């Protein structure tokens, strides 16, 4: 009916400006931004007023004040007149100790349990399932309390220490006592040097072997050679030094044990609880990863003539790892964040030491900012690395 159209079709639609999505978007964004700024300003203003009323100084100057308290475990030097800043640094190092050892144990345990759940062995797979269902459904804090108060807390006093390896290792309610290792100069450097050299050379050999195999198809037993280099070289050098190692065992004195390395019960309880708890999650990640590799892959690999070991190593594991690694890093991050529960049993980690500083100095904002900055920094850095990893590992499709 309309013989003449209202205008050319490619002209912009006639909308009133306040109905234009572009302008609406800008308007609401400006509104949100204003609201956020207003809230932030109110908070800052209120805080400034409150701090003034309570006579609390602002800024990070307090970090150089003398701390005046002692920490139960200081991996770095912590003298009597050390500053708050130093104390927080000690706490950070302790957090790193817990996180790293927790990650190592949780990985070993988690992979074992995860593979165990897929085992053909009925007893083992049920045991692994029970482990996962039990551990991950009980709060971590409760598990830490259990290990710390109910298991380690009721161990005998130092004089009645348990001695699993008579005279060398002691366990009592003050912790685990291990002998100190003193390597001779040649033996010590030989082991370290041998290890580093072995690692570098075997990396080069593996690379060369892979390239050669891709070109010629000839295989090279790089696994055995690397094992020989990495384990054999340090051992050989250690033997060449005439096994130059002296062990200093802890000695019993009247009330306590002297000498040796002491691992405080707080650390044991925390690492035990964190690693067993996180292992139950890692087990699920590992199981999901292995199940994600379709059975056809295994069958195809076998029909190409690959052995069982080769199928696992060349086909199944590389594909499973692609699925496993991102959630695995998430679990590592969770473990690191959960290590802050140390404060409940007074293991001197970042949060625990920071809490003491917070209570003593009253610098709540600064201490909490330090905490959050450190944990957030770790998370963000890990997330960035993971993004790069994911981009590199992503399946290249058409």
């Amino acid at each position, binding site marked *: 009916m309309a013989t003449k159209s209202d205008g050319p079709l490619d002209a912009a639609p006639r909308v009133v400006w306040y109905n234009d999505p572009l302008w609406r978007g800008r308007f609401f964004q400006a509104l949100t931004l204003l609201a956020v700024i207003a809230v932030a300003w109110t908070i800052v203003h*209120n805080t400034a007023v*409150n701090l003034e009323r309570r006579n609390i100084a602002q800024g990070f100057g307090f970090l150089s004040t003398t701390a005046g308290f002692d920490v139960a475990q200081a991996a770095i030097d912590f003298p009597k007149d050390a500053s708050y800043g130093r104390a927080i640094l000690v706490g950070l190092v302790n957090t790193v100790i817990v996180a790293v050892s927790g990650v190592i144990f949780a990985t070993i345990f988690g992979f074992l349990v995860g593979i165990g759940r897929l085992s053909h062995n009925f007893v083992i797979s049920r045991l692994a399932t029970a482990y996962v269902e039990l551990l991950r*459904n*009980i*709060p971590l804090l*409760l598990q830490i309390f259990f290990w710390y108060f109910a298991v380690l807390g009721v161990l005998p006093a130092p004089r009645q220490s348990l001695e699993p390896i008579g005279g060398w290792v002691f366990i009592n309610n003050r912790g685990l006592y291990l002998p100190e290792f003193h390597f001779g100069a040649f033996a010590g450097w030989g082991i370290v040097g041998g290890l580093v050299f072995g690692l570098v050379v075997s990396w080069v050999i593996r690379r060369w072997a892979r390239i050669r195999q891709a070109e010629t198809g000839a295989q090279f037993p790089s696994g055995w050679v690397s094992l020989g280099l990495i384990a054999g070289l340090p051992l050989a050098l250690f033997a060449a030094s005439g096994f130059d190692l002296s062990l200093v065992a802890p000695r019993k004195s009247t009330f306590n044990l002297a000498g040796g390395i002491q691992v405080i019960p707080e650390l044991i309880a925390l690492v035990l609880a964190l690693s067993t708890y996180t292992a139950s999650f890692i087990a699920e990640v590992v199981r999901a990863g292995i199940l994600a590799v379709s059975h056809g892959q295994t069958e195809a690999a076998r029909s190409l003539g690959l052995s069982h070991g080769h199928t696992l190593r060349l086909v199944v594991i590389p594909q499973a790892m692609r699925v496993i690694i991102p959630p695995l890093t998430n679990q590592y991050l969770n473990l690191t964040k*959960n290590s*802050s529960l140390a404060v409940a049993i007074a293991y001197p980690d970042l949060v625990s030491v920071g809490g003491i500083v917070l209570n003593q100095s009253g610098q709540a904002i600064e201490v909490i900012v330090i905490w959050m900055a450190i944990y957030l920094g770790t998370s963000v850095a890990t997330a960035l690395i993971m993004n790069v990893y994911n981009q590199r590992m992503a399946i290249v499709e058409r």
Partner: protein
Amino acid sequence: MSDVTTSTAFVRSVLTEAKAPPKSIVGPWAWARGHLFGSVFDALLTAFGLFLIGWMVWQVLDFAVLRAVWSAENGEACRPEGVGACWPYVGAYWKQFVYGRYPEPERWRATLVFLIFAATLIPLAIPKLPHKRLNALAFFVGMPIASFFLLAGGVFGLEPVETTLWGGLLVTLIVSVVGIVCSLPLGILLALGRRSKLPIIRMICIVTIEFWRGVPLITVLFMASNMLPLFMPAGMEVDKLLRALIGVAIFTSAYLAETIRGGLQAIPKGQYEGAMALGLGYWQMMGLIVMPQALKMVIPGIVNSFISLFKDTTLVLIVSIFDLLGMIQASLADPLWISPVTGKTGYLVAAIVFWVFCFGMSRYSQWMERRLATGHKR
């Protein structure tokens, strides 16, 4: 000719009975060989596993039943060497584990709250029952308001009860339910914001989500209890429990936002396009088309968030609010019941309670996942 064929050829007119599979493949013996001791290593593993199971079952049975103390006036009977669980201590304290220090004559109010909670949650969790919308409204709006007035009192002639007296399982439940109820709308908004086309809103949401996900809950609780009072206008006091609740709700909303975003991403693009083609605006499209589907899809995820929140409520004891674990921890200092086994008994009780709740919820979420796995699978 025909004679010959009929006499010499044999044509089977009836199928023979199928032969039973060989003994080595079926039957309990074959099963055992396949699953228990196929090889020497397998047999060793089985033996090790059986030993471990037997040892653990025996340990628990021995501690909780055989060597346990069943009746006593005080902790004296639990103190000798070699005694198992101290059950009389639990008998003396269980009311505190459930209600905390809530005044004795007013405890019926807390009981009523538990009942209202169950009465609104259970029908909501059963997909077959009708009136889901009304039910959800009752659970997410009615229940918290009714519970608040019931517990805090001060209205309808109810005695006011300070929140410092609240404790035990009651607080565990309050923190986790308030956490999830308040964080759900917040999480939805953050998730929508993160997928928004408006750059400033998207930036704000991403920063918020990643910030709260990147820090441990303990620091959030410390922040809520130490910094929140500083943020308020001078002279304004914020209740201690409320501070913890705010911290928990914000923390959980960041995690929920990510769960919900997963659901939003799983909705096929055609749904958005269809909604837009119908001429729906943004909020209509989200509210009527996308969100109902996305939320339904992420119910298992939300339940999982609730499980971790439920476990994480134990952390409030660090800012001295006494939840179930906090009450147990506090009761262990009672000189009347102090003994080497009191701690183990208390933790065993806490572990059983938490495990039953969390395991039940995780089973529910798995069941829901299977039920919902019919939709957008392609």
